[in-house]
């Protein structure tokens, strides 16, 4: 078989095997481990020994989501830079000018987010 196809086959096999390995290990550990009798507070979540008050799924500050949005933008732009970097050696100064423009736009975006206070952890 062609080697690139083999490589992708291996990637697929790794996903399945990894998942199966987790199931197997947890199953074996369940076979080996003792089952102790249930007492009322054995299954309470461990919050330093005090009884949990209210629901565990509490609200979160909106700051996390601002960072998440920024991350999506910047991560994708970074991925765009990779094909450019691979082709970098083959093309002249033109490729550099092009990317400086791209990075300048990226930097302007970051500067704007910074100025608007999106990067302040509150």
């Amino acid at each position, binding site marked *: 078989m062609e080697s690139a196809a083999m490589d992708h086959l291996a990637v697929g096999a790794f996903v399945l095997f990894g998942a199966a390995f987790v199931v197997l290990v947890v199953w074996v550990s*369940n076979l080996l481990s*003792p089952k102790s009798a249930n007492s009322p507070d054995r299954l309470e*979540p461990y919050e330093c020994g005090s009884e949990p008050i209210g629901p565990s799924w509490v609200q979160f500050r909106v700051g996390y989501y601002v960072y998440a949005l920024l*991350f999506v933008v910047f991560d994708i732009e970074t991925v765009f830079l990779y094909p450019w970097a691979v082709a*970098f050696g083959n093309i002249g100064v033109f490729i550099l000018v092009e990317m400086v423009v791209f990075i300048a736009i990226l930097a302007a975006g970051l500067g704007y987010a910074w100025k608007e206070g999106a990067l302040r952890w509150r």
Partner: protein
Amino acid sequence: MSPTLAVVVKLVSIIALMLTNGVFMIYLLRKVLGHLHIRLGPMHVGPHGILQTMNDVIKLLTKEDLTPRLADKALFFLAPMIVFVPSFMAYLALPFSDTLKATSLETGLLFTFAVLSVVPIGILLAGWSSGNKWGLLGGMRSAAMQIAYEVPLLLSALPVVMLAGTTDLGGIVDAQAGTWLSVIPRWFITNPLIWPTFLIFVIASLIEVNQTPFDMSEAESELVAGFGADYSAMKFGLIYLSEFSNTFVMSALGVTLFFGGWLVPWIPMSWYEAVPVLAPTVFMLKTYLGIVLMWWIRGTYPRVRIDQLMDLGWKRLIPAALVMIVLTGVVDKLIVPLFNGAVSW
């Protein structure tokens, strides 16, 4: 060898490598941190405590597997899997030698970063599903900081890709063969232009693997154990195995990108061909040196605050990495060719 058999051999050897690495690294971590703290570390099980981790594996296997009452049962089981599978897959593209690698993916570097970036989702799920406020906080912090540092990490690998002209990890190693002035290795780290980039890579990779100056997600003095607090038995074991394995993969990636992978320029190529185990041995030695360096940092610096951490990532490292990309480009395309008198437009 038939294709199926080849895949099976890869699966078995990599899971074996991952488990041995895990067991050995946990022992090594205890010893390294122990000696940094001027104490001995494990000493009782076996000579110098070398069997301590084996003992711990057996203990983890025979512990009762608890699912807390408030947990989301399905996700609670799924989370260790989402943490473990990507870190297992991250070994796929690592070049242990010219021929000894699971795959030679053309996009090896991107593939490794991509699978490693799935891990925070698993950690977030682990924290969310255990129905524990500390766990949720730990998971959220971990996700926030890992995504903050993924961008500088990706950016800091870019100058290397620019100079090597490929994202195939084997190709990046090949690009570092030979010497400058017949003494200095042609590793990317010997290029002064790459030094700031390397620094960014080191900081970002420490955060990606949750090492102590940046271990906000499981800060034991603040969050009990963060996202892992309610995990027990082998589910806990798998999450921690994957964390150690990620440390190994990050160090291996650093070695591949900056320190010439399995290459040592003073060793002639004919030796590598004569002794097939030489290349993987060199690679493993360099990787473990990198790991010990990470732990040295871990044992030396106090934990930073999360707002400082986010500032460092977004306001310092990302702009610095962008500047380094432009600078590498300008030096490589304009300044060096100007001296040689041959700028290609």
